[in-house]
């Protein structure tokens, strides 16, 4: 199973719609970095509106992919984290402190525009 990555101008948009297993998460990490490399995208929004569980492994993969993209020169914003997911992550002790987030896709794109100064 692969998570589709859409390109819009110099952004990449991802909406995670399926239950993520570990292998899908790792595959997504590779696919995204590869797509950033090939497309030269400067910003990425990963929308998590439909995700109803983020456990420690998926949180690690998401946090890592933000750092990895940052190393390559692309900014990533995570959007749409559900209230229940946010509460569970804090209970787990996962704060994702250096990860940029926004309420929804629209706010996420605005945040990217501000950060990238376009």
């Amino acid at each position: 199973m692969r998570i589709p990555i859409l390109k819009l101008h110099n952004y990449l948009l991802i909406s995670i719609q399926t239950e993520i297993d570990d292998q899908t998460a790792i595959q997504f990490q590779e696919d995204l970095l590869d797509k950033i490399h090939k497309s030269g995208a400067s910003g990425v929004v990963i929308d998590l509106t439909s995700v109803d569980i983020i456990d420690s492994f998926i949180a690690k993969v998401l946090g890592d992919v933000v750092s990895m993209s940052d190393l390559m020169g692309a900014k990533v914003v995570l959007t749409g984290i559900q209230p229940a997911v946010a509460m569970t992550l804090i209970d787990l002790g996962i704060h994702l402190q250096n990860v940029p987030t926004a309420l929804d896709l629209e706010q996420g794109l605005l945040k990217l525009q501000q950060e990238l100064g376009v």
Partner: protein
Amino acid sequence: MEPQSCVNIHKEWDIVGARQLGREMAKKLGFGTVDQARIATAVSELARNIYLYAEKGQICFEIIDNIEHRGLCMTAVDSGPGISDISQAMQDGYTTSGGLGAGLPGVKRLMDEFDINSEIGEGTRIKAIKWVR
């Protein structure tokens, strides 16, 4: 709904199967969406521990429904290598697998009751309960 259901954890995809069953049972018992997410996440952490450290094991869910209590009890059992230092494994940020080290202490915080027994060379048994409020 059966009062008890078990999932075998043999392969990675079983982690997803276990948390789906956990969530489904939590939903039927009347837990709210936040507690459903807490339960599903706790199941995911326990299932991943089995898969990573013991390779094989089982997670069983049991509904507790009596005059005083209503809740979901989950028991994760494996016959893996066991945990040599439980107090260390219960510390935040401690990991031997390169993960976030949020697993066991996280599960304890997500659930209302948490009990762990582990014997070196015998395996590990973790029991955790969430009460319906």
